[in-house]
């Protein structure tokens, strides 16, 4: 999977490295800003109220 992505990135090595870094950043941002905030209230370990 990762080697497939790496093979399909265009350009010489430094450019590919930058692109790979941008991809990783994009995925992490997606997780932090969209996926985790959506997921979090559905998980059973941060409820603080009674009733």
């Amino acid at each position, binding site marked *: *999977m*990762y080697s497939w992505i790496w093979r399909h990135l*265009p350009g*010489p090595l430094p450019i590919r490295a930058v692109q790979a870094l941008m991809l990783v950043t994009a995925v*992490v941002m997606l*997780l*932090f800003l969209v996926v*985790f905030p959506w*997921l*979090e*209230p559905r998980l*059973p*370990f*941060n*409820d*603080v*109220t*009674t*009733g």
Partner: protein
Amino acid sequence: MAHVLSPVRGSRPPRPRGDAVRSTIRGVGELLLTAGLVVMLFVFYEAYVTDWFSAEKQREATAALDDNWNNPRGIVDRPIEGAGIAKMYIPSFGSDFVFTVLEGTDVDTLAVGPGHYQDTALPGEPGNFAVAGHRVGKGSPFNSLDLLSSCDAIVVETVDRWFVYRVLPLRGESADWAGKAAQPQCRGVDPLTGSYADVVGKTIVLPSQEEVIAPVPGQPDLPAKQDIELITLTTCHPQFSNRQRLIVHGILVAQYPKVVGQRPAELTADA
């Protein structure tokens, strides 16, 4: 460079039969590693990233509350859901421990700061001023609630008054309370009697036990109008778990009108 290499790759002899198996196994391995990384990222998110988000929201809520206190726009008879209603200080957690308490206990409100259970008493009112707060992440206002001792101060500031609550005697302390009662910080704190006899400073209950925020904790059937002014703090227990709730009860021992430039002695003496 890629198009120089690709003819070489293309001219390779046909892959042996085992290659499909190998690349499948590698793909599964990579997926598992990725899943592990995502879980670790989630832990990081819960413990740190939500703190950054919440700190910003808490700052905004505090600024809005200060603005509201300094420039009153008419009297509001009931607090507005999601808006700041008071500030809470717990000197034994450090002199910088202050959180703006908001009205309501839904997920979005609790991400800003501790939330006041709607329909429980307001600060200083007879009954039970009940507040929920996160223990992990989201600014974790109630992270150290388990470290509170009896007689520790919980100071609540409203638009015009300071209310000083103190943690009630813990379970087992009541029998030998005379010794502790002599300490200056325990003035006004005594084991409760009558219908309050079972109310102690700290308990751990099941999430379903909403009677802990009743005007008389543990007795939801008693009328809402009561003589004693209590405070109740709730958070999750154990840390990182949803299994139980940690409950702290305190009693109002003093209140002062606010004077510009002055803070109650409790905020400095206990620190």
